[in-house]
């Protein structure tokens, strides 16, 4: 390929921009994290199909949570994935293409609340123990189990908060961590002028 081939035509520029690909040669790819909610038929097959599609098509899958919704025949999956605009739009379209998929919402960029639950066991006694409890207090965690040398805590919050909590605890002797993965929900539209 010769040098001039590297200069892009206007149409090629349009395509690159639409895909969210860098226009400058050599610039790093611009992958972004997205949180996608998927409503599917509440059946084993439907869940497997969704997860399988990610692996079959080589998409990233950072976390998945699944649970039944207000309608017991429908499950809600919250999927955290990464990619540039082209990849994300492919993911959404491939999800929609599955026959068991009822609806797909990319909540990224909308006004939404997200939570993750984390349970953590920490081996600590004496002075260290009150330090751990203090941090737990600050993060509004709850103690869910106590033995003479183990504290089991539970915190709920946005993933960033959970990350920070787990990081802080690292120096205090983590025994075990169980994280739920994210769930996200779009906020209801606010009546004009109201604020929380």
């Amino acid at each position: 390929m010769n040098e001039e081939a590297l200069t892009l035509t206007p149409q090629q520029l349009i395509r690159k921009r639409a895909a969210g690909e860098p226009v400058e040669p050599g610039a790093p790819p611009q992958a972004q994290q997205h949180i996608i909610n998927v409503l599917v038929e509440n059946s084993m097959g439907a869940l497997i199909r969704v997860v399988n599609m990610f692996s079959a098509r080589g998409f990233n899958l950072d976390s998945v949570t699944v649970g039944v919704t207000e309608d017991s025949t429908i499950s809600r999956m919250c999927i955290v994935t990464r990619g540039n605009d082209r990849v994300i739009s492919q993911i959404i379209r491939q999800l929609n293409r599955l026959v068991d998929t009822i609806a797909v919402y990319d909540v990224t960029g909308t006004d939404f609340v997200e939570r993750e639950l984390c349970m953590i066991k920490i081996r600590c006694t004496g002075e260290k123990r009150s330090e751990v409890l203090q941090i737990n207090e600050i993060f509004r965690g709850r103690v869910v189990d106590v033995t003479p040398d183990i504290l089991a805590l539970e915190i709920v919050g946005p993933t960033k908060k959970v990350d920070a909590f787990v990081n802080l605890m690292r120096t205090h002797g983590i025994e075990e961590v169980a994280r739920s993965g994210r769930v996200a929900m779009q906020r209801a539209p606010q009546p004009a002028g109201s604020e929380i």
Partner: protein
Amino acid sequence: MSSASTAAALAESQPRLRGRDAVQQYIGKKMSGAEIFLHALEAEDARVVFGHPGGAVIHVYDEMARVKPNFQHVLVRHEQGGTHAAEGYAKATGQVGTVLVTSGPGATNTVTGIADAFMDSVPIVVFTGQVPMPLIGNDAFQETDTLGVTRSITKHNYLVRSPDDIPRIVHEAYHLARTGRPGPVVVDLPKDVLMAEGVFQFDEEIQMRGYSVPDDCDEIRLHRAVRMIEKSQRPLLYVGGGTINSNAAEVLTEFAHHTNIPVTTSLHGLGAFPEDDPLSLGMLGMHGMWWANQAVQHADLIIAVGARFDDRVTGMVDRWAPHAAIIHIEIDKSCISKNIYADLAFNADVKSVLEQLRPLVKPKKVKRWLNKIQDWRDECPLTYADDGELRPQYVLEKLRARSGGDAVVCTDVGQNQMWAAQYLKFTQPRTHITSGGLGTMGFSLPAALGAGFGLRAYGIDKTVISINGDGGFMMNAQELAVASAHGIPLKVVIMNNNFLGMVRQWQELFHENRFSHTDLTDTNPDFVQLARASRCAALRAERPDQVDDVIEKAWKINDRPVVMEFRVVKEEMVFPMVPAGKSSDEMITSRHAPETFV
């Protein structure tokens, strides 16, 4: 008896009711799951079932002998052959193809055909037997996780858990296979469900909240399309197989004629637009016409119609059609902006969009553009040597002359497929059937078998030609016996170059003539004897002057298949060619000009 009168006789000998009317009498009746299944197939008007029995479906076969349902069961000799036959049936007739096999090996043998149908959007429904429900997961005899195995190569798949569910699931399966972007559906039938008693019910209405057929065609989009077309000076229609699936060939042809926009087609688009039309550029892509690829590279507007910008079409995507704005009309949203960004997209049925668009667009004045394309045509025409050797292109031209473009042609994979695409000049939809997406060697013969049964079932009088390489022919040669058993008068062509020709071509062009494991000279059977052993007529030509005679003789045989072996030169290559991963303007045009023709 000629094939025409056979078809007529058959149509007459089946005055029985079809579809829903045929099963009205069973509604509300108690019967075995197996019998419910047979009536469910009747309700779908499945006219031919390609199948192979086994333990898990033995009750279905038993009920078939007792009930004598309203369809023909064809015993194929390998389940892969069955799936390709169903594909051939579907592509030739536009109806859904049906396959019935047993569990385990029966099911796994269908996998290649299912994957093929998935890639090429072919509507087939594959019914697989399964071990009884209580044994599932126990590594029971002939148990395979068929749902798991086929999940990523089906549009959808089902496990049936109760005999009462059979008619609903069968109805949904056919609906899914046929509508939207067509594709394969698998229905797994556990043996105990087939044996249990249930009640036959049939409800026409489909309730699938997760599935709908898109129709994004509104005024705004239509007017944007009109503006883009009006503004363009070098417009091009790029037509794919979706146009044929949408039964839009006629509408597309009218659209092209009305607007004066030239047409190039993908491999699966062949037949959607008559190749003898002055506006036709033939096929584009890796082995497409040089002028068609030039037109793509210079176009300022490409209207992609039922096409998916496959890498065999685009070569290196970043450099494909660098000046063209793209309008994409496509039923499968996931194909839009997947490989090439669409500036304007209609996620809707091709036929309905073209019908709405045509009256809004004024005829274009594109004389300069058409002249330019004509110059490219003259600059680098499609040729082959005329030196007394027997060459496949010559054979194809003779076949084209004999069949007059009216035959249904099934091609295999490799050089034979590409030459057929280049030389047969297709003029009608559903006359070109091939494995494009998966590139499955061994496709042609069983697909032709299925097409033959399909045409017969629908009383269509057309010759069916199967074109093969010597390598691919051997992959499903067992189906010859099925064709002869049923007197399906296939014209089976073997282009015998004693090589895995397409691989040989790559080895010569890109691997310094190391012909690693592609020479079949010592391992090929005597094809004439093989054909005769399968009760087919067989003919052979070794020189160009024998070709006419062989074809004439073959066309006189109408009561059984005829195999024509053409001993063609082994060194022949398919040109022009865009090497894999290169850009469409880097075509090799002959062995002697490997430095690209830009």
